[in-house]
């Protein structure tokens, strides 16, 4: 992995983390799913995993705790995006296909916490957790669907153009 690619991953982690903090006031309404799809679409699978591990570590470091009951499902759930993108989604850039994938992911993300929350809270009836979490899952699913549907292509084009230009900041030319 080149230094340039490592820097891109570092910038991607920073952007994802900062927007998450900006949207903290609105539960489950974030651009994280959109940014994941955008960055994963330009990163390799290996780079995507480095990006996700870095993001999860930073998020848990800042929000405190390093609670394994949150970290493990977070890591697992977010890793599903590059996995799905490079397998079932076949690296598509069709925004509608990805929007539906983002919609499904909203529910999968919530479900991945289910076994850990059941252990942590002692609830042995998973329907109790599912019924309480369903509205947050719908919120995340709809947010992912709408943002990916409308913002994936413009953001991806901008990112690809930046990567192809060879410079991360525009150079001023004098004639």
């Amino acid at each position, binding site marked *: 992995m080149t230094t340039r690619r490592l820097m891109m991953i570092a910038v991607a982690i920073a952007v994802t983390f900062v927007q998450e903090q900006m949207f*903290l*006031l*609105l*539960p489950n309404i974030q651009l994280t799913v959109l940014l994941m799809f955008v960055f994963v679409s330009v990163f390799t699978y290996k780079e995507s995993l480095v990006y996700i591990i870095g993001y999860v570590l930073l998020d848990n470091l800042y*929000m*405190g*705790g*390093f*609670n*394994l*009951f949150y970290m493990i499902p977070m890591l697992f759930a977010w890793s599903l995006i590059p996995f799905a993108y490079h397998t079932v989604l076949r690296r598509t850039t069709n925004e*509608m296909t990805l929007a539906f994938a983002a*919609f499904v992911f909203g529910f999968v993300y919530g479900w991945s916490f289910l076994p850990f929350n059941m*252990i*942590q*809270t*002692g*609830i042995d009836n998973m329907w*109790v*957790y599912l*019924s*309480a979490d*369903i*509205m947050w899952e*719908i*919120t995340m*699913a*709809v947010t992912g*669907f*709408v943002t990916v*549907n*409308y913002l994936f292509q413009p953001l991806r084009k901008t990112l690809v153009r930046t990567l192809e230009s060879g410079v991360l900041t525009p150079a001023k030319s004098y004639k």
Partner: protein
Amino acid sequence: MKKLFITLAVVGIAAISFFISDYLRQGDDHGTITIVLVDQLGDTISSQTHDFEVDDTLFDILSEHYTIQCADMQYQPTTCQDSVLMEHVILTIDGIETDWQNTYIAIYVNDEYSSYGISDIPLEDGAVYRFQHEVVEGAFE
């Protein structure tokens, strides 16, 4: 245009789901509830009954009769008036003090673990709401 219609359909279904969920979570209009506080040793430190009317919430009753402290966006202690979360997270009720990272206040309704937070629990006549100090499993203490 197709993209817009699909988006509106998805948002519309989500909005309907919210209304149905909110409707199903209606409690009683008035009645009496019992609030029990249990500390970290498992001892009951308080058990009081309170009347409630239409539009009262469990949070309203708590803030009126008990000394409570809420969490801010970073889950740090703050006054409940300064709490900027859309829904309240309570860290302290009278003698029960928690820090969110290692300990939290679990809410039991009629001895069943509540799957809803303090802002979403409906009030039911005759119900017992138990606030119990709990240790977070898996936390680094």
